[in-house]
């Protein structure tokens, strides 16, 4: 029979907030699809490839691309605001 002992938690609480996903647009027709390139090799090829195919499929008006200065550096708040102001949807990714 197992004897138990009390131990304290090594993980603890987090400051991360759970967030709701943004409401999904009913349609992307006539909209702008954004791309945030993480600057890794071929990231733009992949993301812009998906964005252009999507734009053609749904009749989007434009594809616009932003680029992070480096994969290990987060996008600045002004860049995120600019993307939010111009785009109906945005694609980004984290990988090599």
């Amino acid at each position, binding site marked *: 029979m197992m004897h138990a002992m009390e*131990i304290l938690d090594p*993980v603890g609480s987090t400051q991360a907030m759970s967030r709701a*996903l943004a409401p999904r647009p009913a349609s992307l027709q006539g909209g702008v699809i954004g791309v945030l390139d993480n600057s890794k090799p*071929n990231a733009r*090829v992949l993301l812009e490839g998906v964005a252009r195919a999507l734009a053609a499929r749904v009749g989007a008006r434009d594809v616009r691309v932003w680029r992070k200065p480096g994969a*290990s550096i*987060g996008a600045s708040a002004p860049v995120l605001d600019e993307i939010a102001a111009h785009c109906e949807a945005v694609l980004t990714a984290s990988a090599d």
Partner: protein
Amino acid sequence: VPHPIGGVAEETVARKAASVVDDVLAALTRGGGGAAAAAGPAEPEASPHQAPDDLLDFQGFMMERGWGDGLPMIPATPERVASLLAGTRRPPGDLVAVLPPRLGRATVERVAVNAVLAGALPEHLPVIVAAVEAVGQPAFNLQAVQTTTHPCSPLVIVNGPLAARLGVNGGGNALGQGHRANAVIGRALRLVLQNVGGARPGREDRATQGHPGKYSYCVAENEAASPWEPLSVERGFSRETSTVTVCASESPHNINDHGSATPEGILTTVAGTAATVGSNNIYLGGEPLVVLGPEHAATVAGGGWSKADFKRALWERARVPLSRFDPSNVERFAVIHPAGFRDRPADTLVPIAREWSDIMVVVAGGAGKHSVFIPTFGATRSVTQRIEE
């Protein structure tokens, strides 16, 4: 999208892009918008756990929950944690740092829990707390250090009188095993990063291989055997102040030089070892670290060279001809570091750091004709923090 994306033909990437268009469209238009939980704190402060008191069963209990590093752990009972907390004047609830990627709240108590697991004693706690505070500084870029594919881990360099009092080894086998303080301080920091920071190996911690220093990576500078000012003094602290410096470090690579009797000779060997193509520092910048053995340091200083003289000379000498890089990498590096790689002639010599002063030099080790070179992550700066005793 399945790996790899980089290093493959654009047509291959284009095919991968085409294969996911349907999924992306579905996620963008029919994904669970608004379906996630309402915004708010994700979880309350954790309560204690009931764990098996048999040590082997306890080890299994910890590993099943992803809280271990594989090696045996000391159970963090309330009594052991309370006794460890006596090692610091800081209240248990004090927030030391918020650690990404989980944004875990590293309170003094939570650090102490992991320190007990790592085998630490109360007197080690102030060093561990200072190291946690240091990695939490924005300049360290912990989010990237924790989640990168690059093999790096914070090396904790201890300076000042506390190093000797705690027995943090900076002499023979300084970066190796056999000294409790080195082992438990480095291990406690790793467990904090993994558990509180949420960098679980193979999950958020995306290291392609990692390296053995991820178990524990802590060293004292051998100030007594160094001919120069210690790292802490370079960073503006007095010799009497004890500090930790953290730098996101690769594993050590040996620099064997049994022959040189002059600064130029040692420089030639260190430069020849440090100037390599596949280094993060060469295109991302950051601070590569040279750990000089005391005998090499004595040879360099014996020629009248200051530490700054050695750094300047190393920066001038340790260069990689542009022709040794593959053109595809030159093209990529030119975007990241235009001044170093864009439209440069093939005989350009690329330095191992952006500035001579970015090269870090400490003295550690015992008798012998060896030094080590430790490249770092690149997109990070080392941080030196005073230890509050």
